[in-house]
């Protein structure tokens, strides 16, 4: 169990991440945000608003997950029924994938596959609130709130309260 005082503070991480993306925007870069369902989609939605973007995309990685042979369609559950929706042209775009937690990198691999089913972007970056740095694939985030330490047997879960504020909590792995 992670102590309360060690728990990553999602709101602070969000502010840090937002500043980094504002800097990128100031440099003149035109990008689109695509959040990974479900936690990443909430973060992308709030970022799009705070950055003055017209909209944001949602990516459901279920179809490209690599654990279907173990878990079957139960592996779909984490997307909570959100479907992939990209309300902009993927072809030739600069797209920043957004997720709440970067861990092994497997979800990001799946997200790239899903994204490329919709077209060939010019450039793709990754923005995350928290990096658990237990990578199993050669993947990293260009923008991150912070590196965080969470016990190996815990899952870091993002929740959004009614007023839009983010909170991290931990759950034991089944």
């Amino acid at each position, binding site marked *: 169990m992670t102590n309360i005082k060690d728990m990553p503070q999602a709101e602070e991480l969000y502010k840090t991440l937002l500043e980094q993306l504002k800097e990128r925007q100031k440099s003149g870069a035109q990008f689109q945000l695509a959040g990974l369902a479900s936690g990443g989609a909430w973060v992308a939605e709030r970022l799009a608003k705070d950055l003055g973007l017209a909209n944001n995309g949602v990516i*459901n990685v279920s*179809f*490209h997950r690599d654990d279907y042979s173990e878990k*079957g369609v*139960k592996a779909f559950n984490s997307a909570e*029924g959100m*479907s*992939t929706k990209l309300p902009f042209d993927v072809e030739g775009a600069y797209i920043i994938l957004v997720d709440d937690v970067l861990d092994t990198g497997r979800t990001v691999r799946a997200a790239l596959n899903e994204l490329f089913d*919709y077209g060939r972007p010019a450039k793709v970056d990754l923005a995350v609130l928290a990096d658990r740095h237990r990578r199993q694939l050669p993947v990293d985030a260009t923008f991150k709130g912070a590196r965080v330490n969470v016990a190996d047997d815990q899952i870091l879960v993002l929740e959004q309260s009614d007023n839009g504020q983010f909170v991290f909590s931990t759950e034991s792995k089944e």
Partner: protein
Amino acid sequence: MTKTAKTASQLQLNDQGELIHLLTLEGLSKEHILHILDTAKQFVAVSEADREVKKVPLLRGKNVFNLFFENSTRTRTTFEIAAKRLSADVVNLDIQTSSTAKGETLLDTIDNLVAMQADIFVVRHKTTGAPVEVAAHLPPHVHVINAGDGTNQHPTQGLLDMYTMRHYKQDFSKIKVAIIGDIVHSRVAKSNIHALTTLGCPEIRAIGPESLLPKDLNMMGVKIYNNIEEGLKDVDVVMTLRIQKERMEAGQVPEGDEFFKQWGLTKERLRLAKPDAIVMHPGPKNREVEIASDVADGPQAVILKQVTFGIAVRMAVMSIVAGN
């Protein structure tokens, strides 16, 4: 029949209660049905226009065998498309020219195909219970999907009909459904009645001549109407069915024009249903026999949407059974 059906509903679940075959909707729980419909909803997105690559890799490297011992165009094609959109390799067996025609038994054919590393069999057969017999014979890692057995069950059609009704009407507990025509020979009607009952539909009506209605409909909680005008009053869903002449003796029902006059779904009759009622048909439809052309092509018809949803529903069923 009851004995077979019971065996079928037990056989299709493993010890953990997960779906490993889809043989019948009789006895399939509400949770299982809703899980299939929810999963299908996710698969609808795979076929949408803005997705350039209409294919996902879930069943990559799996072999799906379409075994159709009875003719079919729509069902076989949509199963094939569903399997291909999941990246499976699909083999369609032409039974007319196969070893079965040379006297090989069904189970011998199956054994040979298992030896070729089959993962999923999609089976249509004129005999009730044939897919159940196949499922009982198979090793645990091979799955069977019933694509229609005799006059017994057509579970994926029943599920795609549930998907369609849910899409247009949302809440099963608030709708009245009327099924018109040849119900006695219709495995589609049977699968629908079982699923609707499980999902809490409060009123299922069967409309047709006595010779085309099964004797046990009352026991299944279905209201019988021998007058189409009365039966259509205030319903939310109207399902028309083809007269299955190939399963009948001559003279069992009035022919073409005569049937249409008494039981055909016309514009005038459809007005008796709710103004936003949807019209469904599992196909193939016979125009001006069970349904008027201007109804089949009219604004209330969702017959072609059923076909499209059928792909997503079959993708869901294949990925659920193969994943358990």
